[in-house]
């Protein structure tokens, strides 16, 4: 009876330890603790070029993450990228004339959407589109323009 009991206790402790390790991996190591709980609302925006923006890229305002990119599609009539983002439910006061930019974190970092609030008293609601957008700055294009300008000056 004693030995059986010991085995049961150690197996129980082992299973608890394993589950704790999994929980640790999920909460402390992975991004699960930051994942939005699924509620929130959607906004869309059209960009003429999204660079290397990806699904799940952050959407920030004043540098604080307030949502994520949920899907990226292509508008075949206007030849533009259609980005759908999910904004956290608590952030329900984004002005209608908000500006959406695609920024890059660091020189070679990942790209994210930065929202700059406008001054309109009306707020964006679920399914609305952000009209003012600024595309991603492509490093290659910038270098190309810079070289082109230099060549023009010297010639």
């Amino acid at each position, binding site marked *: 009876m004693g030995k*059986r009991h010991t*085995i*049961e206790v*150690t*197996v129980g*402790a*082992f*299973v608890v*330890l*394993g*589950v*704790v*390790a*999994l929980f*640790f*991996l*999920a909460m*402390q*190591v*992975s*991004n*699960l*603790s*930051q*994942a939005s709980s699924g509620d929130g609302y959607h906004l869309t925006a059209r960009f003429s070029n999204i660079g290397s923006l990806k699904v799940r890229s952050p959407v920030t305002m004043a540098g604080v993450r307030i949502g994520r990119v949920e899907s990226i599609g292509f508008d075949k009539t206007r030849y533009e990228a259609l980005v759908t983002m999910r904004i956290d439910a608590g952030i329900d006061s984004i002005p209608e004339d908000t500006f959406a930019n695609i920024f890059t974190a660091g020189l070679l970092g990942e790209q994210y959407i930065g929202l700059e609030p406008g001054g309109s008293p009306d707020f964006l609601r679920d399914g609305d589109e952000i009209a003012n957008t600024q595309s991603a700055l492509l490093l290659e294009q910038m270098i190309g323009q810079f070289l082109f300008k230099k060549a023009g000056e010297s010639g």
Partner: protein
Amino acid sequence: MRFEAFAVLGRGVLGALERLGRAHLLLFAILAGSGEVLRHPRLLFEQIYNVGVLSLLIVGVSGLFVGMVLGLQGYYVLAQFGAAESLGIMVAASLVRELGPVVAALLVAGRAGSALTAEIGLMKATEQLAGLEMMAVDPIRRILAPRFYGGVVAMPLLAAIFSAVGVLGGYFVGVGLLGVDDGAYWNQMQAKVDFQEDIVNGVIKSLVFGVAITWVALFQGYDTVPTSEGVSRSTTRSVVHSALLVLGLDFVLTALMFGG
């Protein structure tokens, strides 16, 4: 006589196919005997103890050292690019995706798989399995099925413990000894390691490895030549085959999970 070389080849292939067939029949018999495990959960607990609890020490210590080595090596390489802050991502991603499931599986194959093979093999050599059958007790249901499920349950838990201890080992070396920033270690890790993509896939991997290892170990024991030499050979083969199977499966799973 003239075709001796072909005959040898053919015999080898036929023998291998025959063993493969027997192994699958055994697996189906074990799965069919799953009910016994539910009816006597104590049998399962004992096997989780044998495979899981007894492997805990070696898995934990190995995880700690693997994590510490990753911390050291990762730091030396990343510091050259001024990216030592990314150490957390490197340690966590390599542990959760690859090293955790694979190394823990190799350790379990050596520590517990070999013991399973030797145990079953000796039971067969000393005709205990035949004795059980005489008493109308099905050895597959009573002996093999609990061991199979014990291994399958214990493996993902051991792999998770390995990864968790490894991340802490990397933290100890990277942050404690080499001076990487504490906050950067964790938040870079959290920003880049994905729950679905990395952790869940790692658990799926270790589940598959658990099935593979215990299946190989049980089959080698059950199919052994009932002599002391036969048991020793089966034990060796059990470790070699399960190690190769784990590494091969790991490649396939990685290609499937992280390829797209």
